[in-house]
């Protein structure tokens, strides 16, 4: 019990770590949405040679992102950005790594959501003379995001859940904070239980919130 008092003693540090976790995750998911949309648009191209090559590249990219551990991707991107001479802060590199990773998953979610938008929806828009980019932005994506909201939410939760790996880039988010406190105090379980509860509240809370919102949307 007295161990849990120690956790309470460090609550400010832990909350600061939580703040970092939330910031990093929100930033990453927002960029990832753009990356995901871009990838799906690239994948929608026709049968001409350039768009076929583009599609192949996207396919390999997504396969790689889905097939390798995030940790490995974080390192590769961190190193690659440096090799490319881009002198970004660790925070920026970390957010980019998470976004590029999550973007691959979001592209797949969008692909799934696209099948839920009947072909007729786009045809109606086309028949009414709408341009292709307009059709995507005004007719297709709003519907995709609505049906894919649950998957997008769980992807957001995934981002929160992999954000601890950014600790390898010295980003002192929640897990890294706990690790530091553990090495400092030689007490482990109470800290890990505490952050598990914090993650749970954030992730489960988010899930419930989206469920509620979805119900409200469906009522109309």
């Amino acid at each position: 019990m007295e161990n849990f008092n120690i956790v309470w003693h460090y609550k400010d540090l832990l909350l600061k770590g939580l703040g970092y976790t939330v910031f990093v995750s929100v930033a990453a998911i927002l960029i990832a949405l753009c990356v995901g949309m871009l990838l799906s648009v690239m994948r929608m191209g026709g049968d001409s040679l350039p768009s076929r090559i583009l599609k192949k590249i996207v396919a390999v990219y997504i396969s790689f992102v889905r097939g390798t551990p995030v940790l490995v991707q974080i390192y590769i991107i961190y190193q690659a950005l440096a090799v490319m001479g881009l002198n970004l802060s660790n925070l920026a590199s970390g957010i980019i790594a998470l976004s590029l990773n999550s973007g691959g998953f979001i592209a797949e979610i969008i692909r799934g959501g696209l099948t839920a938008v009947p072909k007729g929806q786009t045809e109606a828009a086309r028949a009414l003379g709408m341009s292709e980019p307009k059709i995507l932005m005004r007719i297709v994506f709003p519907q995709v995001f609505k049906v894919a909201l649950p998957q997008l939410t769980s992807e957001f939760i995934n981002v929160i859940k992999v954000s601890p790996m950014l600790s390898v880039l010295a980003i002192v988010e929640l897990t890294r904070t706990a690790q530091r406190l553990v090495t400092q105090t030689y007490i482990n379980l109470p800290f890990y239980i505490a952050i598990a509860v914090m993650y749970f509240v954030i992730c489960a809370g988010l899930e419930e919130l989206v469920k509620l919102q979805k119900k409200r949307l469906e009522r109309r």
Partner: protein
Amino acid sequence: MAESRKPVISVHDLAKNYGELKVLRKIDMDIYKGEVVSVIGPSGSGKSTFLRCLNYLEELTSGEIDIGGVSLKGIDEDKHNKKLNEKAAKVIRKNVGMVFQQFNLWPHKTVLENVMECPVQVKKANKEETKKKAMELLARVGMDGKADAYPTQLSGGQQQRVAIARTLAMEPEVILFDEPTSALDPEFVGEVLNVMKDLAQAGMTMIVVTHEMGFAAEVANRVCFMDGGYVIEDGTPEEVFKHPKSDRAKQFFSKILNV
């Protein structure tokens, strides 16, 4: 029919293949202002495909479609036609509206937003004016009371009437209907057919793929019977229904007209 006038739509030698499958074979057809053409035929005969080609929702394999001086051309003759067709389609789609079997209203927008979307986004029309006109159109199809409802809150018949209003909002010269009532509960068929009757009386040029023989007989002034990608019969409803020339049409009508 005033054969002396220039046709609104003029189709020459149109053919459409999906890979090996020949869906449209050799279609020639002129459609004049104010005509109401009913296209009938068994499932798979190419009716929808024909309609979709007129609006460039499908690439043409060969032949030509001329609408209001702009033409779509088959890509078998020249691959580059594809690029040209895409340009032409922009003009053609302003002249030709389409109403689908599945209504295809946009579920994330209200009835009014569905009707206003394209005038505002495509024609860059003034919002206030468009809204006024949209409400008039909704009134015309009897849907002004539901302007703020979402499509899923409407019955099929009501959705289809909104879809017609949405198409009218773009002020097309011709409207294509692809089985506009076949996704409807029987009780709602009548209300949609009545809206279409009104349009016909107001002089709108219409091409209607339909299984509603009653409508075809009563409202259309021309009936085309398609089978296997050919237009086999083309004439007044009287001619086609009562005195079909081909055996295939006779056989088809005998099945459809009595249970």
